[in-house]
């Protein structure tokens, strides 16, 4: 976990010392899609995001972002087994988990001017996702932990409440490309929508 703390501190310090920069912390809700939705068809209410942005002009910024979402599900679905000449099934209480840790370099374009109360923006992140997939059934646990290359297009808005307080709302589509085989077989790409809300602090 030390590397997580290091990134958090780096983001907070960097954003606060730069002349034209913005740091933010958000509460992240995530909605699984595609294969992740097949594995866990529940909304993730547990998520956090940290971000630092450095402005190249009043309308353009580059930065880094870090996130964490926990998807989990308890289910009694029967698992089907298919191997050469052998079939079968496994039943019992399953606990399914996926933890996603996106670490992305970001770029954003903003509408309006610095002092506008609401500034819409679009952008994207590119980088890596570290994803932990885990299945517990009975006394057995299976894990598959992998690094993925990923992309996250994004749209959002900054709402300035006062000179010191800015709220940030954004929607991201997280796409972590396949980097191997998932626990249940097949490609292990992971996709989900992220709906994020939080506070930003800016230095001008």
């Amino acid at each position: 976990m030390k590397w997580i703390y290091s990134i958090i501190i780096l983001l907070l310090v960097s954003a606060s010392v730069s002349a034209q920069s913005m740091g933010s912390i958000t509460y992240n809700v995530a909605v699984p899609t595609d294969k992740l939705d097949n594995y866990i068809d529940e909304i993730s209410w547990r998520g956090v995001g940290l971000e630092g942005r450095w402005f190249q002009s009043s309308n353009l910024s580059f930065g880094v972002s870090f996130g964490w979402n926990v998807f989990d599900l308890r289910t009694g679905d029967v698992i089907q087994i298919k191997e050469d000449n052998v079939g079968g099934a496994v039943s019992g209480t399953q606990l399914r988990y996926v933890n996603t840790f996106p670490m992305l370099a970001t770029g954003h374009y903003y509408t309006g001017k610095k002092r506008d109360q609401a500034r819409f923006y679009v952008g994207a992140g590119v980088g890596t996702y570290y994803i932990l997939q885990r299945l517990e059934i009975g006394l057995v646990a299976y894990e598959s932990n992998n690094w993925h290359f990923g992309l996250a297009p994004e749209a959002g808005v900054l709402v300035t409440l006062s000179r010191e307080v800015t709220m940030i709302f954004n929607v991201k589509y997280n796409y972590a490309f396949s980097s191997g085989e998932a626990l249940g077989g097949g490609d292990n790409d992971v996709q989900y929508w992220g709906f994020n809300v939080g506070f930003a602090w800016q230095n001008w």
Partner: protein
Amino acid sequence: MLNTYRGQTMKSKKKKLVVLFSLIMLLSFVLYSCYPDYGLSVTDYDTVITLFDSDANFNKQTYAMPDSVVHFVDEGTTEDDIDRSKDQLILSTVVNNMTALGYTRVVDSTAAAPAFAVLVGVTTTEQYGQVYYPGWGYWYGWGWWGGYPGWGYPGGSVTYNFTTGTIFITMVDPTKLNPDTQTYGAIWLARLNGIISSSVNSNQRITQGINSAFDQSPYLGYKGSN
């Protein structure tokens, strides 16, 4: 001057609120686990695994089953520590399910050889690794098939673990003799993991577990001669 001072105090309070919110968010996640605990009970750890030979023909009418449950023990051990009070419940639940599927149990050793043998066993030890079934001396001289040389796992071998109190139900096709290993082919295997290792609702768990094993095996059943 006073207004300016008040304004600065208000801004300072807002900043503090933002910082406080941020710290709460961070702390809640630092303290939060990657794997939330669902507070499972003993029964949540029960699992039922069924495997079958996809080349097997289950549409045969008769089967034989011994009147007792074999208790697997460690090599070199002669006694086990699992009581036999559940044996009749296990056997009768298996018979009920087989009957419901259209199979007929043959108990007369002078009758024609049945199509399958159904064998029920319980572990008394915790083991990990590749499962294999040693020959059961139990079957020697029992009747139809002479000395029983044991049986192989459906389709070969699969690595998994099982724990004390696990129930095994195996369906063997005596016509599937592997000449290399001198084992009969097990065409269906049900493993009820740890069902009788705890006394919590054990009768209900045994019944439900065995019923689940048959329920999740829709390919079983005698549907009439082809």
